[in-house]
């Protein structure tokens, strides 16, 4: 397997995109985008930008775009299990107030 050598141009473009997205996310944080008590719109914006940046790093800097299916599966598994951990934990935390019961959140 000869390694795929990524051109300098692509690396520079990715760098530029990452810097631009950083500027964007900082700028967005100065505006209240709404979304209730937890400011969901702000959170969603910031996390979307973060996911985009991470994806760029994984695909280009870490060469996953040019790697075998197996690497894709490994990366996908890591992300999936992280989401399981966060998601199922939140399934408890976010629904705890639905029934009136004494808990640390309701005090």
């Amino acid at each position: 397997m000869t390694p795929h050598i990524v051109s300098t141009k692509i690396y520079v473009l990715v760098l530029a995109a990452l810097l631009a997205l950083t500027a964007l996310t900082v700028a967005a944080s100065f505006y209240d985008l709404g979304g209730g008590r937890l400011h969901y719109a702000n959170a969603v914006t910031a996390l979307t930008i973060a996911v985009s940046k991470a994806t760029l790093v994984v695909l280009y800097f870490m060469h996953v775009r040019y790697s075998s299916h197996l690497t894709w599966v490994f990366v996908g598994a890591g992300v999936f299990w992280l989401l399981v951990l966060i998601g199922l934990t939140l399934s408890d935390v976010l629904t705890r107030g639905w029934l009136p019961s004494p808990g640390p959140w309701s005090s």
Partner: protein
Amino acid sequence: MSTLATARPANYLSVDPGVMSWLLTKDHKRIGILYLVSISVFFLVGAVSAAVIRLSLFTPEGALLHGQAYNKMFSLHGISMIFFFLIPSIPAVLGNFLLPLMIGARDVAFPRLNLLSWYIFVLGGASTLIAATTGGVDTGWTFYTPFSSIYSNTNVTLTAVGVFITGFSSILTGLNFLVTIHKMRAPGLSWSRLPLFVWAHYATSLIMILGTPVVAITLLMVGLERGLGIGLFDPALGGDPILFQHLFWFYSHPAVYIMILPSMGVVSEVIACFSRKRIFGYEFVAGSSLAIAVIGFFVWGHHMFVSGQSVYAGLVFSLLSFLVAIPSGVKVFNWTATLYKGSVAYHAPMLYALGFIGLFTIGGLTGLFLATLGTDVHLTDTYFVVAHFHYIMVGGAITGFMGGLHFWWPKITGWLYPEGWSRAAALLLFVGFNLTFFPQFILGYNGMLRRTYTYPPEFQVLNVMSTAGASILAVGYLIPVIYLLWSLRYGQAAGPNPWGATGLEWTAPSPPPPGNFEKIPVVTEEAYAYSTMETRRA
């Protein structure tokens, strides 16, 4: 042994027998032996503490231990058995020894990491033992906060550090196996030809890699909170102890599958060999290992039904828990179907394997009671739970370990053990186990709570039965230790394939030479080609 060993062709035991060469070995077989010795120490610690617990429960007011002493004893039992015996048992001993042999490789992918994992294990084990001997720990193996992080006056930090360290040995083992299975298979050994033992270890490795880091970071936080009082899990400071339980069980529920999946792999090999048949529904047995590993991560909340977790999350976790029963059922049915019309031979490994099927089935079915939200409210923290998980962990995992040890002992050492004694021991273990733990189902159902050193007098008869069973169980473990050690000196030479089994490990000499194979084998047929083997022999 050394005098006899020299008479045999050079093998991994006889080449370079010095102590230093063992301590610096990168040979997966020797590392397996190192693990076998070290986990035996922890099995002894766990078994002795279990014996003390059972003796103490002989009388309703506690015959030996009271209060904190009792708490420390069951904590020691749980921690040494789970983290230092069951989790490394089959993977680190039999897996290390057999995986490369089974896939036709000279070693695991990262031999140095493999040795490192053993040293990490020893370091973690030493910390835990030091913690146990310098005051002990009374939190149980679950380390629930805020008791563990704030109120307990015992050696929680050092014990947690020990478990934290040992976690990395488990991670390294899993990482090594995963890469080894992906990248080191002999030519022709496609995924559909892999022995089911290898499939089971693949699934186990996934859990080790994905789950262990979470318990590691969780224990780190408990340690931080104990040291600095920052309130991560302390309700008085706004922390939520239930979140600890989430992170803890995210690992510790799948950890049960780290214990049971490798046993299932052993059982698949043994059942196929002693029925002289291909495993019925090979693809489904292989796939069910992966399914158990994956679904096993979705069910952890069933440990927390009465913890204060939201009822809605409880409903979801209850439903998801039932899903694990499907792949487990697939395995049991397929093993049974393999026996059908097979020419079954009742050697010791087979007795253990059959025992496994029965005990695991009972353990699994009672698990369904506990996965049911409503029933669990009644049964939580009773001996019903204790009986259930001992049917899985002892009846399942340890029986599988014993079966595997007996099946591959001739390969590992090159010597045969006495047939009669081994069968008797397997039967004794089965009887002793059931006598110990079946009464605990009834005790628990009638309301006897776990982790208490006293109980109402009306429970005494069943408790005495349980203690009596434990003594039979102890004999059942002691006899194999004696005759296996005996075989090292007086056993007959085993030859490469004493059971007439398929599988690449049986094509290598017993014990195998340092590089396993003279020439890397080429695989041309499926894993359990017993029918073609019989034809060839005829």
